[in-house]
């Protein structure tokens, strides 16, 4: 039985300083600024340096989120990190972030759901809060995909950027208008081969052959994912609206995963949402995987686009395949 409501207390984000734009990419692979812009809407992306790793940005995003809220460090009762490019295969990046935040005696774990990771992690956080097990959960999306990108493959290397975004999911007080209204996550493992990092796990441990064959990098069948992406985000978003008796006109802001401008436009078109209600920052960050939604939300809050009381719809898709949506009153 539902005992409490969960809400977003705050968001925060952090990206690497180094920026790579389309003209820089023209020098690395056989591509053009025009191709990248028209096919993806991207122009710049932030790239982690050799010495930077996921937990560095996850930690900073978490600090920014905490400092933007009334929540104190010691009030956090759970850390969930959504990532597919953590510091190490183990321990979890969540435990590394916990150490960096100086927090003890609370659980911390990672969630692996590709680019849908942040949405998955929010769904989990919501359960903890609604069931009364935790009052404040720190949820972080972080990916450093440029470190597992094949820089000779123009089909993929132009698409990704690095960064992290975080949210604090808290118990809503009775007087709060803010709350997570509903969440819906889904998966279809039968299509997992469309987007995969083949080597580095127990199926194909690191070997000279796996490194030489570039099997530790992102493999993607982009054009087959494109259609899936629009359909799946549409399906989970429509379901949330339907079962909460809301219509598209009730939504103030849609914050979609920033994988491709054309996917975002296709989704908006299918949902019949005007692009003026869709938060887009893909031209500045590229696809930061599980970090796109919290970075975009954080930016839109700081730019005073998203305000307290607005109805927001977050929606994402990614490796797995996975997809899902979150409906909330911010």
């Amino acid at each position, binding site marked *: 039985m539902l005992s409490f409501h969960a809400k977003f207390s705050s968001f925060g984000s952090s990206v690497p300083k180094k920026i790579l734009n389309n003209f820089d990419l023209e020098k690395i692979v056989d591509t053009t600024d025009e191709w990248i812009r028209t096919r993806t809407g991207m122009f710049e992306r932030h790239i982690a340096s050799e010495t930077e790793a996921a937990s560095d940005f996850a930690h900073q995003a978490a600090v920014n989120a905490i400092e933007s809220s009334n929540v104190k460090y010691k009030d956090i009762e759970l850390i969930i990190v959504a990532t597919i490019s953590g510091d190490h295969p183990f321990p979890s990046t969540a435990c590394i972030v916990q150490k960096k935040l100086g927090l003890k005696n609370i659980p911390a774990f990672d969630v692996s759901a590709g680019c849908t990771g942040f949405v998955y992690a929010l769904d989990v956080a919501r359960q903890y809060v609604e069931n009364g097990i935790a009052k404040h959960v720190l949820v972080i999306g972080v990916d450093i995909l440029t470190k597992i990108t094949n820089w000779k493959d123009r089909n993929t290397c132009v698409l990704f950027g690095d960064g992290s975004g975080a949210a604090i999911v808290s118990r809503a007080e009775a007087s709060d208008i803010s709350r997570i209204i509903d969440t819906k996550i889904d998966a279809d493992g039968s299509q997992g081969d469309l987007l995969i990092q083949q080597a580095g796990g127990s199926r194909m441990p690191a070997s000279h052959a796996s490194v030489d064959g570039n099997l530790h990098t992102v493999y993607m069948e982009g*054009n087959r994912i494109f259609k899936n992406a629009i359909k799946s985000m549409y399906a989970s978003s429509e379901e949330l609206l339907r079962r909460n008796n809301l219509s598209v006109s009730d939504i103030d802001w849609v914050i979609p995963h920033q994988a491709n401008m*054309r996917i975002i436009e296709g989704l908006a078109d*299918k949902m019949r949402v005007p692009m003026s209600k869709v938060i887009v920052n893909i031209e500045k960050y590229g696809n930061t995987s599980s970090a796109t939604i919290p970075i975009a939300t954080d930016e839109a809050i700081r730019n005073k686009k998203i305000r307290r009381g607005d109805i927001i719809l977050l929606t994402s898709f990614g490796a797995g395949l996975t997809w899902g949506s979150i409906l909330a009153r911010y």
Partner: protein
Amino acid sequence: MDIEAKVKQIVMDKLGVEEAQVVPAANFIEDLRADSLDTVELVMAFEDEFGLTIPDEDQERLRTVGQAIDYLKEKLG
């Protein structure tokens, strides 16, 4: 509206081309200047309009306006 007229309308809307260009032999990419993602978007628009699912394998069978009309007539007929 019949299938043919609906297909032509969708092609005009999605690709921003004139009715006179949307002849059966017109190839979406070569003649109507669609890019590879436009062709996927076109197929999705056909799916929505006609309420069917066009599998990825069949995408290749819809390269021209005429092929799209024939394909849809076959599936809906």
